[in-house]
Each structure stands twice: as structure tokens, then as C-alpha cells.
């Protein structure tokens, strides 16, 4: 029984272009606009504070925290109703949620401190036991206060569409506070996340900063309960920072991007759920986060999978090319026959497509060219490069033999790995050391 997205502004037909544009530009009626703006703010807040949860390696602690809010909501409702107040008042329910959420986190810490159980078990225990208690409370409400049950149940899967303006204002307000405080404390949070021991020696109250960080996580979680639901609100804290991490290695950019991804997902989710029937906002928001995450993981230039594997492949191709040039140089064979390449491939374990790609790159780099008779020949640049690689190889080999006391017969293997990654600085250092020991240096290639 997911809260139906059935308010007046929701359509049963496919939306027209003008409806889409109206909704997207915040002109689709007061309520819808408020909800969209509110979820946008919530997304930004969750993305920003989620960065620190991720960097402090506490992502899943937030999952336990959000599940642990349910019994608080149920108890707050029952208590308020029994005392004759309106149990569905959002501030009351959120206070209950905060108290039991914090209690859940305290329980995790207590389990870690006083028992031999590990973090994963502690999180699982708190998550399931608290949520079970919440379910008990909900079923009690359902059977004894049937009137209020719908409002409270909505917290599990979220009910963005039925939020009242005052609810949205509360959510947006909390989100705004969270964003501002985490920007204000950016420096302190990053210090503690990176190196808490150093922070402590440097005189920072690490425990207080940690509590502030966790407090902001609690605030954002509680704020997001009604819009996104307590099972999925954790996604809004985890996914945007993880997705943003693929794009950048800068902290402030990471915070900015995570906020943007969270905000966009919140915006997009509530727009879709306002336009189309049967699209629960919480799920759409999380799925949009998921889409951004998948794109980031695959395509991001900084740390994405494609970019990383291309970089790795290029390095391997360069090393393989070096090997080929070196082999040609050592055989003093200006012409590389097809057989040579195939034989070398067999030794080195290069598959055929890799081999072709390597030859193509060498040709494009002007290191080899087509010879008259079917085969390939080294260009002048290729000869020089082959000589240089071959010399590095010899240098390193002599270093290992004369300095590291490695048996000459064992050297070749380690040399193969190293010779291609030697920096110029290191090569000069090698030459200097070998010269000190009066080891005969291989000839510098004529250039």
C-alpha cells in the first residue's frame, strides 16, 4: 500500500508539453511547486552531508539510522493521540523520529564498545530490531487508531505528493540549515575525515566534530522521511557523493557535485511524480540518482571505468611497443618481419587484436613504417627509442647486479617491469651511482 500519488494536480493522462514545462519551471500550482522546491533542497542537503558520511566510512550507519526512526514515529503518534493532540502533526512525529534514530546510533556504538561483535552485525541488529519495533507500533496504530494509520505508514515509502505547505517548509528549512552548517564546517569535517589522530593532536575536539557531523546526518534523514521514505532516504545520502567521486579529486568540487546530483535527482523525481500517475517520488528520486551513478561510474573522465581502463590499456600498449622496438634494436634488424612479431607475441602473451593495435599505434607515432617487402621497419625515431629502452634496461640490470646483489640470471624478470616506468631523474641517479662504482655504462644512443 504505497501512498497513492493522488492529489488534485496529478493527471491520469500523459502530460502535454505545456504541462511538462509548467511543472519543470515551478509554475504548476502552489503545492506541486513547493514540493519540487523542497525535494530539490533536500537533495542538495543530503548530497553535501553525504560526502562526509562517505569519507568517514559511515555510509551504512545512516541506513541503520533511518530504519531506527520508525519506532519513534509510531510512539510519538500513539503518545500524542493518547494525550489528545493531533498525532499526525509533522513536528511531533519528526521529534520522535530524531530521538529513536539517535538512540539507534547510540546502540550501535554501545554494541561495538561492549561486545565482540563487529560493525556489520551491530548495524544489522539495530536496523532490524528497531524497524521490527516500528512495525509492531504501526500495526498497533492500524488496529486501534485506524484514522491516523495512513499518515504514519507513509513514512516507510514516502508520500511527497501529500505533503502540506507547512511540511515542505519544515523540510526545506532543515535542509537549508544542514547545507549552511556543513559549508561552514567544511574545513573541520574534512580534517577529521582525513586524519582524526592528527586533528586530535592539533587540538581539535574530534568527538564534538564527529557528533556535529552525525547530527547533520540525522537532521537530513529526518527531514527526508516524509518525502522519500525511510527505506530510501539513505540512498539520497549515499549515492550522490559516490557518483560525484568518479568525476573529481577535489573536495570542494566533490561537495558541489554531490549537492548538484542530489538536488537534480530530487527535482527530477518530484517533477516526474507530479506529472505521471503511479510514480512514487521517493523511488523516482532514487532511480534518478542511480542513473547518474551508472553514467558516472562508466563514463566519468577522472575515475570512471572506461577512462581508467583506457589509461591502463595505453600504458600496456606503450610498454609492449617498447618491447618490440627493443627487440628489433637488439637484433640489429632494421626490418621487423611478421614472424618476429608473432613470435614475440607468443612469448609475451599478447593477443592478436592487442598486437595489431600496438603496431597501429607505433606506426601512427612514427616509430615504425611499412617496409618494401611486406614487413615493417624501424624509422629513425624508432631506432632511437629502441636504443634508449635497451639502454635503460641495461642500466637497471647493472644496478640490480652491482647494488642489490641479485643474481644476474634473475635480473631480467624484474627489469622488464621497471625499465618502462623509470623517470629521467631516476635514470640520471642510476648513471651517477653506477659511475661511482666504475661500472661500464652502456652507450648513450646517438641522437
Amino acid at each position, binding site marked *: *500500500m*504505497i501512498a497513492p500519488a493522488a492529489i488534485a494536480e496529478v493527471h491520469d493522462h500523459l502530460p502535454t508539453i505545456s504541462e511538462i514545462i509548467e511543472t519543470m519551471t515551478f509554475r504548476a500550482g502552489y503545492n506541486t511547486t513547493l514540493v519540487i522546491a523542497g525535494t530539490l533542497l533536500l537533495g542538495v542537503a543530503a548530497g553535501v552531508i553525504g560526502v562526509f558520511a*562517505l569519507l568517514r*566510512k*559511515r*555510509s*551504512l550507519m*545512516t*541506513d541503520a539510522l533511518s530504519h531506527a526512526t520508525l519506532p519513534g514515529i509510531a510512539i510519538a503518534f500513539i503518545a500524542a493521540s493518547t494525550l489528545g493532540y493531533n498525532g499526525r502533526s509533522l513536528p511531533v512525529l519528526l521529534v520522535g523520529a530524531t530521538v529513536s534514530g539517535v538512540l539507534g546510533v547510540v546502540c550501535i556504538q554501545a*554494541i561495538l564498545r*561492549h*561486545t*565482540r*561483535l563487529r560493525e*556489520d*552485525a551491530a*548495524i*544489522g*541488529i539495530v*536496523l*532490524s*530490531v528497531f*524497524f*521490527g*519495533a*516500528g*512495525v*509492531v507500533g*504501526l*500495526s*498497533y496504530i492500524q*488496529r*486501534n487508531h485506524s484514522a491516523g494509520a495512513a499518515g504514519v*505508514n507513509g513514512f516507510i*515509502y514516502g508520500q511527497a505528493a501529500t505533503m502540506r505547505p507547512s511540511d515542505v517548509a519544515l523540510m526545506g528549512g532543515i535542509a537549508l540549515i544542514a547545507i549552511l552548517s556543513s559549508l561552514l564546517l567544511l574545513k573541520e569535517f574534512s580534517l577529521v575525515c582525513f586524519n582524526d589522530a592528527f586533528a586530535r593532536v592539533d587540538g581539535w575536539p574530534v568527538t564534538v566534530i564527529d557528533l556535529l557531523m552525525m547530527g547533520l546526518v540525522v537532521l537530513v534523514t529526518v527531514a527526508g522521511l516524509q518525502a522519500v521514505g525511510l*527505506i*530510501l532516504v*539513505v*540512498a539520497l545520502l*549515499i*549515492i550522490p*557523493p*559516490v557518483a560525484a*567521486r*568518479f568525476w573529481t579529486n577535489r573536495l570542494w568540487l566533490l561537495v558541489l557535485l554531490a549537492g548538484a546530483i542530489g538536488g537534480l535527482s530530487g527535482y527530477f523525481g518530484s517533477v516526474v511524480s507530479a506529472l505521471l*500517475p*503511479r*510514480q*512514487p517520488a*521517493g*523511488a523516482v*528520486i*532514487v*532511480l534518478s*540518482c*542511480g542513473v547518474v*551513478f551508472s553514467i558516472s*561510474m562508466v563514463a566519468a573522465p577522472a*575515475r570512471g*571505468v572506461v577512462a581508467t581502463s583506457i589509461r591502463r590499456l595505453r600504458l600496456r600498449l606503450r610498454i609492449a611497443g617498447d618491447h618490440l622496438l627493443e627487440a628489433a634494436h637488439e637484433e640489429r634488424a632494421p626490418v621487423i618481419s611478421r614472424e618476429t612479431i608473432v613470435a614475440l607475441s607468443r612469448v609475451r602473451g599478447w593477443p592478436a587484436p592487442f598486437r595489431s593495435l600496438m603496431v597501429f599505434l607505433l606506426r601512427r607515432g612514427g616509430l615504425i613504417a611499412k617496409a618494401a617487402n611486406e614487413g615493417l621497419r624501424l624509422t629513425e625515431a624508432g631506432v632511437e627509442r629502441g636504443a634508449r629502452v635497451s639502454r635503460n634496461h641495461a642500466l637497471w640490470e647493472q644496478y640490480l647486479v652491482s647494488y642489490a646483489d641479485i643474481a644476474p640470471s634473475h635480473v631480467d624478470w624484474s627489469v622488464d617491469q621497471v625499465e618502462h616506468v623509470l623517470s629521467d631523474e631516476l635514470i640520471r641517479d642510476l648513471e651517477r651511482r653506477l659511475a661511482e662504482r666504475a661500472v661500464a655504462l652502456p652507450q648513450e644512443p646517438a641522437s
Partner: protein
Amino acid sequence: MKFSVASDLFPLLAGVLAALTCGLLGNFLVLRRQSLMGDAISHSVLPGLVIAFLIASTRSPLVMFIGAAVAGMATVILVELVKTLGRVEPGAAMGVVFSVLFALGVLLIEQAAARHVDLDAECVLHGQLESLVWYDAPDSIDALLSFKAFANVPRQIWTLVGMLTASAAFVLLLFKELRLAAFDPAMATTQGFNATVLHYLIMLFVAGATVASFDAVGSILVIAMLVCPAATARLLTDRLGPQIVWSLLIATGTAVGGYAVASIVPAWFGRDAVNAAGSMAVTAGVLLSAAVVFAPRHGLISRVVRRRLLASKVARDDLLATLYRAVEAGGPIAIGQARRLLAGRSPSRVIARAGRLGLVHIDGDVVSLTAAGRAEASEVVRRHRLWEHYLVGEAGLAPDHVHATAEQLEHLDAAPPIGPASDPHGRPIPARDR
């Protein structure tokens, strides 16, 4: 509130069966620090169930099982991919995968509901134990043994029985491999039991247990039962065999207790029964807290008690040693002096207790050692001086530094084996007189 075979037997049985299945498998998750993988899987089987249902348009257990197993395996693989390819921290990787899959499931259910399909997202969370009614329940023993009685047993029960049997067989057959893989995966792999394969097998069974349990007890109880009984058992024992037995007992107790509480306690207040699955999860938490407090070796109380016992032994040892040194120096000492020497550790009580134990003799204002007290005191002083000797001789510490350290060490049962005649300060080391 009376137990009724028709309306209570199967809900209870389903709870127990689910608890046993999950409790059994949970042992390996907790040991391998993979508890949250159970959490992730039980969230993310949701889209698997819905998709399988939408494709096959049937709720037959086999179809559901296949859907859930595929989704469960997909979760494990996706988490692994995000972790290794994307270099994402394990917890966050898990969070990303299961929340996206769960959101997908929620959306699909909502879409399916448009086509008047009977799938219910809340049910997935807290199950519908109460709906497992035994129609035409047998009213006599003869009827119970007839074929007809079994024809009406709900299919959820059969699914759970099947899953429990399969899991038990899996654990029994592969017990030694599972134990090794949980303790030392690298070693297991070098021994020829591929730890990764075992890991995936466990995850497959967890996915199976989730789907077998979900429409009876809901995924929340699955998570609770995967983690809590095993964690509780881990506090009670240090060995895997007994731990599994304990976890099964605790799982059964949790299910029965939770069910009873759900139906009985509200009745006291004239209210309707509350959700049984949730109540079982809470019971699991209560049992765990009890274990945290009362466990024989690792529990809080037993640790406090042992610390107290140690403290009182330390105080007594100190009293005896003080008296022994006083005798060495010239004679028995006044109670006031002994109190001052034991400052800060309620000396009157220490002295009174030592008197009751027959270690000291209180004669008016003077405290002296009895024969038994002298024997014990000389042992304490002997250990103290042996440690001093060791710390100075072997560890090379300065003689004027070692008294405080030896003061700590003298209360241990062990003492350095070397036996010179005197300590670094030139005082005699008492001989063993026992």
C-alpha cells in the same frame, strides 16, 4: 487468548521455520562480516520478484524463487563490480546497489498495481503471518494423519520446509569447508575449496531463504533472523559448532516468544494482536541485549563481577603483603597503620573480610597474620620480589623503578621461574612453603 490450531499453528510454524533457516545461514554471514549482505539481498530481491511475476504472471513458488535468486546474485555481483571497478568503499557500494534495486522494485510494484495485480510492497516488509490459516483443520489425531489434512497446508509452509531442509543439508555437508572459508578465505582457496564459490553459494541460499520467508514473515524478519540469533550465539560461545546450535535454539525461542508476545500482551490491555513478524524482531533484540548483559564469559555482568573479584583479591594480597613486611621489619602493626597503608580501598572491609577468611587475626588494636595468612602472604611477597628481580635483571630496568610494576604483576598467578635468594633491594625472597 487461547492457542487455536486453525489460526495459530501455521503462523507460528512459518515463523519458526523462517527463523531457523535464516538463523542457520546467518552464522556464516556474521563470521565473515557480511551481515549487511543479507540486508542488501533482502531489500533487492523485491524487483526480482516483481519482474518474475510480470513475466510469468504467476505467483508459483518456483517462478518467485528464480526471480529472487537472480536478483540476489545480481546484487552480490553488482556490489562486487562497484567495489572493484569503481573503487568504492564496500559499505557505500552495498548501499548504492540495494537502494537503487529496491527503488526499482517499489516503482515496478506501483506500476503493476495499475494492472490490478495483487502485489503489496508493505507485505514484503512485514509479511502476513496472520493470513496463514489452516482451513478444515483436523479435529482429531486420526484426521491429522489423513492425506486430506495435509492438502490444506498453505504452500508457504511447504516452501519453508523445503528451504530449511536444503540449507541444513548444505551446512552439514560443507561444514568443514564453510568453517575454514569463514576463518581464513585465502587458506581455504589454497586448500582447494574456492572461498569465492562458497561465498556465492551462501549468498544463493540467503536469497533463497529471503524469498521462501518473505510472503509469510516479510523481509524485516529475514534481516533480523540473519543477524540477531547468530550474533547472540557468538556472545555465548567461542566455537562454531556450539554457536550454530545456540543460534538455532535462539531462533526458535525468538519466533515462539515473539509470536506469543504479539498475541498475548495486547490482549491484557484489551487490544487486538500486533504484527507478529515485527514482534519477533523485537524479541530477537531483547534476547541479544540479555546476552550482552548476562553471557557467561563475554557478558557485562560477568566481566564486572570478575573485575570486582580481582580487585578484592588485589586488596587482600596487598594487606597480607603489608603485614608480612611489617613482620619482617619487626612485628605486628596497629590497625590504624594497616588502614593507612591500604588507603583508598575501604581498608576496614578488607581487613574484616580477611579476618573472616582466617588469614589475619585481630586482637584488639593489633592485626597479625595467622598461619594460613602467613603462607599466602609469603607467596605474594615471593612473586613480588621475583618480578622485581626479573625486571631489573632481565628487562634491565632501574631498581628504584620496578616496585610499582611488580605491584601490578604480583597478583598474577604466574611468576618468573628463576629463584635467587634476594631481590634487587637486598631483601630475601621467601621460599615456597607449600
